[in-house]
């Protein structure tokens, strides 16, 4: 495991904030950390990376304790905090160069521009960060978090302020990092779409306690929730066969409501339906699955 948190307890100003947080993240895994506002996600991250002292429990990152061995951990750690500030008078290239130098890296000519371009920040000579949009700042923050090619990446709301294309690009980068470079990613977000697309395992924190941890499929299954979709079909399917993985809940003209068990990959189900002659033209996610699970676990708490 690249990151392990066992029974973490943290107090701030004498008030207990985290009571019992557990989390384990492997190499090449993208792990979703969920919870309502004020549940303790950011405090968990701060304690995990050694910025806050813990009252109890254990934290190991790459086998080391961040409270006593911060320097080697920070050398292989990339973090994008939720409140991520910049030196507005610098250019993006100066900014990345400054952080590269703090990591004792000496990028070659053009390396920094290549990194910026990878995050959709094309070279703009002389343009200061102070003139950047929120989305551009978010991309620059991600580029900075990845400056030292970290083994562990901790991202707090990384797609905040990004348009759908930008979100998709960031998703693709994270998937590439985890699948092809073995980077472990701890993703802290409210966007369940991001979690469903990127994460296999999640942890849910409520009032400073981990109330659920495991694979999305297992958690949703144990929560006994079906994943619901609405399908638009171009023609009559009342006589068409239905594969056993799909349950037709209702029909309303050209729209059909269907439910899938959480362990079923929707793409497989759609292929089977198409194979059986369903002329599907549109698919809409209707809820169920992780959304119902999250709402159930955090019921009565501020979202």
């Amino acid at each position, binding site marked *: 495991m690249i990151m392990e948190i066992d029974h973490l307890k943290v107090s701030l100003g004498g008030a207990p904030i985290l009571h019992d947080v557990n989390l384990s993240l492997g190499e090449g895994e993208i792990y979703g950390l969920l919870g309502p506002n004020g549940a303790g996600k950011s405090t968990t991250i701060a304690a995990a990376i050694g910025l806050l002292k813990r009252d109890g429990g254990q934290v190991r990152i790459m086998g080391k304790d961040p409270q006593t061995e911060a320097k080697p951990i920070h050398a292989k750690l990339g973090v994008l*905090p939720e409140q*991520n500030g*910049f*030196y*507005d008078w610098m250019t993006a290239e100066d900014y990345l160069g400054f*952080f590269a*130098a*703090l990591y004792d890296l000496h990028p070659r000519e053009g390396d920094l521009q290549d990194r910026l371009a990878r995050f959709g920040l094309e070279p703009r000579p002389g343009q200061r960060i102070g003139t950047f949009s929120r989305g551009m700042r978010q991309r620059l923050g991600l580029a900075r978090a990845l400056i030292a090619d970290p083994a562990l990446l901790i991202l707090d709301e990384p797609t905040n302020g990004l348009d759908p294309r930008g979100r998709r690009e960031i998703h693709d980068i994270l998937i590439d990092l985890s699948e092809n470079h073995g980077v472990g990613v701890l993703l802290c977000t409210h966007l369940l779409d991001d979690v469903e697309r990127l994460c296999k395992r999640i942890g849910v924190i409520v009032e400073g306690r981990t109330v659920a941890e495991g694979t999305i499929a297992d958690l949703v299954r144990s929560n006994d929730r079906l994943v619901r979709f609405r399908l638009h079909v171009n023609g009559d399917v009342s006589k068409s066969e239905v594969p056993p993985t799909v349950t037709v809940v209702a029909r309303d003209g050209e729209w059909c409501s269907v439910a899938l068990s959480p362990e079923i990959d929707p793409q497989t189900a759609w292929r089977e339906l198409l194979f059986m002659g369903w002329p599907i033209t549109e698919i809409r996610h209707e809820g169920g699955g992780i959304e119902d699970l999250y709402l159930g676990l955090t019921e009565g708490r501020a979202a």
Partner: protein
Amino acid sequence: MTATGLIARKEAGDLLLSLRGLGWLLTMAVVLSVFGLLLVGNTELSLLDNAQVVYDMGGIVTALGALLAVVVGTDAVAGERERGTLVSLLLTPASRNSILLGKLGGQAIAWAVMYAIALPYFWAVGSTGQNLVDGAVSVALLGTPVVLGFGFLAMGLGARLDSARSSLLPGLIVLLLSASPLLLGPSLRQSAIGRAFDAVNPFSGALNAYDAVIIDSQSIAAQVPHFAVTFVWLALTLWFAARGFSRVSR
């Protein structure tokens, strides 16, 4: 370049390249211009002699330097924390001591810039007399620990308090109390309370040394007690900043 050097250079950039920093330097230059004109006007009218205006300018430069140090010191820790830039620095492999030293270096650069801005004003008010060089050297030697001490105090407060505003206020209050000898008359300063205050106040230490060197023409080497007060102040505030910074968590 070391992490300390990189951070000191960044701090200098914060002062010299950001609108906020340039605004403060411009304000200092305007205030010095106003005082310079007043002092030159007084000299022309023979209300003050040359030694007195150089002494006054030394006090003003030290007070303005300390004010700039409080602002820059507050911004270096509390301001960076509020803007969300400090955490990114804390999460690099650079040690806390390196980051702190870099920020202390930034304070020194800010004072050096302020001093450089003040030199033409020294010349403007004191070029016709014999005390100009003594005045400038006194401010460099005794003003430096006083000014840097206020910067370190502001950094220590910024590390301990929640916001830049709440840490700026106590820093300014300490500065006003310390700089009050500039406003006190000679009789008050000769009272028991005035003498006790002078003995521990770094600002008084610097001003008394300026008085002895510029007005009484004593040698700078003879100002050991005044040096002692200002350097004890510098050491205490450095300890205060280091202790506070070691506890900064975000």
